[in-house]
């Protein structure tokens, strides 16, 4: 059992180091901008349409946020302390609202969209991929793999645009039918609540962004699963069980089970990709999650918000990765019983 603890401990250490390095990047980058960073930021902001009062207010806050009047090591220590205590500063734009509360308002929408899309894509994609490799040479294989190849290459954002156009705009223009709403997470006249009306509105708004995240990811899983499952199918234990007359149904279960295991680890890596897709998807759907928060902040260069979103999203990805590793330990007896390191 101690090998298992070691495995988890190692993963935990990697996680902490990674987060620390991510934090350091977020700390170093604004400070390596040539010249006085605040001044150069202000200059670039001044070219925009901000009023002079707002500019000086920005300037004051920027100095405050980056603590540029203090020595570098103090800045770094304070930065670390603040980020671990959840003090991510205040937004330059949203009337000084703390970044943490801004994030708290946006994060749930992102997670509620992201997690089901990732999990559904994983299960369906892997099943189809394994099925396709099992039915080698069949029409089913050709169709599944062909579709998977194309769908996996469709960019999230373009799919999002096209889905809105085809399933929300076109039906209205052609037949006057409001099939799906073209954007937003729920009907803006409603307040988020647990009423039936709100939930229905939420679900109707959910379908298109969900599909736009699901499909490309699904295609990716089909393709990668097919390679893994084909390799498993050629392995000695399948031949042996086959030659003992073990039913095809059971053999397929063997292949599925063993090919799923490496895909669990891949799930952790995929997370980052889907999240990137999500950031853009939210912008196109005007879906009020972290992506929208980030793109809006990028537009007005609201640095504390950009930094805060960066840190929280990375922490989320790292945490999810850790959970995935943990699940892997639980489901693979070889690791659970300490016979393989990873």
């Amino acid at each position, binding site marked *: 059992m101690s090998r298992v603890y070691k495995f988890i401990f190692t993963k935990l250490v990697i996680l902490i180091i990674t987060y620390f390095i991510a934090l350091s990047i977020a700390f170093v980058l604004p400070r390596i901008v040539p010249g006085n960073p605040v001044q150069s930021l202000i200059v670039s902001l001044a070219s925009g349409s901000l009023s002079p009062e707002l500019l000086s207010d920005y300037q004051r806050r920027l100095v405050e946020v980056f603590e540029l009047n203090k020595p570098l090591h103090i800045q770094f220590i304070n930065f670390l302390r603040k980020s671990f205590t959840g003090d991510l500063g205040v937004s330059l734009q949203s009337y000084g609202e703390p970044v943490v509360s801004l994030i708290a308002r946006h994060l749930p929408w992102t997670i509620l969209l992201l997690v089901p899309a990732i999990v559904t894509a994983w299960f369906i994609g892997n099943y189809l991929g394994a099925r396709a490799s099992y039915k080698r040479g069949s029409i089913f294989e050709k169709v599944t793999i062909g579709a998977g190849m194309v769908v996996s290459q469709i960019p999230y954002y373009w799919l999002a645009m096209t889905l809105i156009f085809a399933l929300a705009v076109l039906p209205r223009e052609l037949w006057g039918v409001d099939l799906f709403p073209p954007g937003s997470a729920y009907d803006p006249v409603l307040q988020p609540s647990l009423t039936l009306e709100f939930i229905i509105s939420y679900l109707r708004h959910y379908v298109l962004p969900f599909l736009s995240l699901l499909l490309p990811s699904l295609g990716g899983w089909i393709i990668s699963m097919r390679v893994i499952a084909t390799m498993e199918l050629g392995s000695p234990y399948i031949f042996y069980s086959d030659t*003992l007359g073990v*039913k095809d149904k059971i053999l397929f279960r063997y292949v599925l089970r063993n090919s799923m295991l490496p895909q669990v680890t891949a799930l952790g890596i995929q997370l980052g990709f889907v999240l990137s897709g999500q950031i853009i998807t939210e912008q196109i759907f005007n879906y009020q999650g972290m992506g929208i928060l980030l793109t809006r902040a990028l537009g007005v260069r609201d640095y504390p918000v950009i930094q805060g979103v960066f840190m929280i999203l990375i922490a989320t990805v790292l945490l999810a990765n850790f959970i995935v590793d943990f699940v892997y330990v639980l489901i693979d007896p070889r690791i659970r019983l300490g016979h393989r390191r990873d």
Partner: protein
Amino acid sequence: MKRLELRNVRAYYRLLIGNREADVRAVDGVNLEIRKGEILGLVGESGCGKSTLAKVMLMNINPPLFFKGGTIILYTRSGNSLEISKLNREKLKKDVWGKHVAIIPQEAMSALMPTLKIKRIAYDVLRSHNPDISLDETVSLLTKRLKELGLPDYVVDRYPFELSGGMAQRTVIAISTLLNPEILVVDEPTSALDVSTQKLVIKTLWSLAAKGIIDSMVFITHDISVVRQIADRIAVMYAGKIVEVAPTEDIIFDPQHPYTRGLIDSIISLEPEVRKRGLRYIPGQPPNLINPPQGCRFVDRCPFAKDICRKKEPPLIKINNDRLVACWLHVKG
């Protein structure tokens, strides 16, 4: 008398070289019979097609390997004869594999489904043939078989990776014989094991036959010193063909085919250290099986090659009461 009969059996690997297809004639016109109650050794150097022949005997043939022709007949305990080379996959799976013929593959460890416990693996085998069997019944059957083979019963609750190499090999033997098949095809069962474990595995195989769990066995190996411990008869394979079949002692002390002779000489005369690589000491290389020589396939390495050897393939003929050789030296006239 006969248990399994192979008549002119051919099976080729279809390869793509660049964009051209080519056939590797791994098993090319094999004639062989396995008798009731015997242990037949099948020897040859690696790449001669003996492992392919193992798959072909069971008719478990998957691309890129293709069955090209010939007849394989199985004679069951109940007295039926079954032409298994004519059966389709479903029928083989339902009626033949596991019930009448079973295999012990080269590497036992990788032959066991890695993420299931031994009892689950056995359960999946048994319920494929008998849907009504329960896991508990499986466990008691398996425990009984393990005991017969001298294995501890805790094995049933282990995962494959928790077993040692020798233990895994013997567990595979137990699982393969759960349905008491008439024929067991054993493919290089000892190549990955140390000498003392080898002995144990061979003893286990021996006791299978002695206890009547199985009836006949084909023991495939590249190592004559192993096979002479267990086999009643030995068949020597070279480049996709059987070149000599005879009782074990005759093969060891009086080999007739020049290849068999080379094989025996290289093992008997050299020190144990060199023995393992001994087969290399026949000068030259086995022929390319995509374009094998027109005549005898051993001709380029044979010290006694004659004109006819290059032109015509020697037939496998009976030269005395229980010995078959495929060599022009033994064809009279």
